[in-house]
């Protein structure tokens, strides 16, 4: 009996410590935006909204969120479109070298990371005149996400039945009609997952835009956030806290949406 009680006390102490460890760093983001004259130390907010004024006054803050959106959506659209086409063909048509190609894709996506490729990607962007080009950055980000996206989508398409396509074909639909009217509706949850995955990836990405966009008007939220706290003397805490919050909220909303709708699953090669 005593052992049981000690066990329970131990359990709740451990849980409390763990919760403190994960909560304390986040408190500032919840409190400082609504505290007048915030400091580094977390204090009880007085629920003012005047700090948000700082965002409107800052010349690049709102623009950078728009840039983040542009990069994230642009990349996601390209990734979903190109990965869906490739994954569909790889899933339905047995071509020579298919398995080797898939193995190579999986290998590539895990070894060529931003860290390993930053030097040549920077060089490539200089040579191709893609420095300060948002389209160039979108293409580079797309290239990096495509292998994993194709791999995940191919798995998804392998598990959808082929019988609908076969019957559509019996009724004389052309291959492109079949893809557009039969396959896309069938795999829509998979496409949505990949789209959200790509958006989340690009929204939080710091290294690539930091490397390739030097024009402050084109930089996304991640780079502006970093600039706000590293450059220019005393950090502007009302601005940093409100901007950090606004920049984070979409990620949290997206996560809640996905976990509610599909149930949260791993992204990345953990499915086997």
């Amino acid at each position, binding site marked *: 009996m005593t052992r049981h009680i000690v066990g329970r006390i131990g359990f709740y102490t451990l849980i409390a410590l*763990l*919760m403190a460890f*994960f909560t*304390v*760093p*986040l*408190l*500032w*983001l919840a409190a400082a935006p609504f505290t007048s004259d915030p400091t*580094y*130390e*977390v204090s009880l907010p007085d629920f003012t909204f005047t700090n948000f004024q700082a965002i409107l006054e800052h010349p690049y803050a709102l623009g950078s969120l728009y840039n983040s959106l542009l990069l994230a959506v642009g990349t996601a659209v*390209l990734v979903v479109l190109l990965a869906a*086409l*490739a994954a569909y*063909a790889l899933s*339905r*048509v*047995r071509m020579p070298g298919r398995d080797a190609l898939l193995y190579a894709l999986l*290998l*590539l996506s*895990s*070894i*060529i990371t*931003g*860290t*390993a*490729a*930053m*030097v*040549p990607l*920077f*060089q*490539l962007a200089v040579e191709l005149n893609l420095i300060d080009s948002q389209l160039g950055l979108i*293409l*580079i980000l*797309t*290239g990096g996400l495509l*292998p994993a996206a194709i791999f995940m989508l191919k798995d998804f398409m392998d598990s959808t039945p*082929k019988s609908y396509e076969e019957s*559509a*074909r019996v009724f004389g639909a052309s*291959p492109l009609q*079949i893809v557009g009217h*039969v396959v896309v509706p069938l795999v829509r949850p998979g496409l949505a997952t990949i789209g959200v995955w790509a958006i*989340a990836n690009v929204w*939080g990405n*710091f290294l690539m835009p930091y*490397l390739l966009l030097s024009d402050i008007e084109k930089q996304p939220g991640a*780079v502006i956030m*970093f600039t706000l706290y*590293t450059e220019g003397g005393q950090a502007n805490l009302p601005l*940093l806290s409100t901007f*950090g919050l606004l920049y*984070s909220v979409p*990620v*949290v909303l997206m*996560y809640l949406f996905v976990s509610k709708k599909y149930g949260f699953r*791993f992204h990345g090669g*953990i499915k086997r």
Partner: protein
Amino acid sequence: MAQATSHPKARYSADAAGLGTPRAAAFIAPAMALIAVFLVFPALWVIYLGLTNYRLTGLAAAEPQFVGLDNFVKAVSDEGFWNSAWLTVQFVLGSAVIGQVVLGFTIAWLLRDRQGPLKRVVEGLVILAWILPGAVVSFLWIALLDRDGGTLNALLGIPGFAWLLDHPMLSIIIFNTWRGTAFSMMLYGAALGNVPPSHLESARLAGASGWQQLRDVVFPHIRGHILTNLLLISLWTFNDFTPFLLTAGGPDHKSEVLAVHVYNVALRGGELGFGAAVSTIILLINLVVAVFYLRLLRRKS
């Protein structure tokens, strides 16, 4: 098409939409083109660049010369490189292999047969640390660890303790443990669901203590998951650039893990050739870990 009408069944199941190889190739081509230009080519080029004396500016920028293995020899005899390599080992072992695995498993184990709000809140907090943008959480930790006004020093009652200046490695290790535990927690949560309850029950009836149950029943069942988890988070942590956002490698290179080292040498210092040689070494290490991981996946399936 003639063949399709004579053996409709056989053709259809091999190619349900009747795409045919040429059209299938056309479907694959755009994706492959982007991957080739922006992923494969840079990886190959970095190997070549590592063999030149390429610099960001100056004479060697205009006409880079082939210098063979000089950069690699220089890297292997360079103190800065070994300093970074050793810091990277500490970072990966400390924050991923020990921090994230132990914490992730502990949370999954504590919450294994619970439902309801406590489980949701704890998991939600851990996942929140994982999904928030790196630039935001880095600043949150800078605020938390601030020497004079930071919340941590106020809580611990040690004003003036300079975490990021005096203990930069410890700071980024704890930071990355906090940041990345979610993945391990979810993986072990799923793995523990696969341990048959009857095995645990019979161990308990035989009088096994908590630790004995873990060792004799749980670990053998989730060994594959542990290995998968270790390889993946080691790979990710090894390539993680986020420490740059917290300490930028400083002070005095004391937290300059390899990912940050490459940036500082190649893009801040302008020595692209040398930076490319270090990148090649990173690529090779990634390759070894990834091949191990893929072998593991194959053996399982």
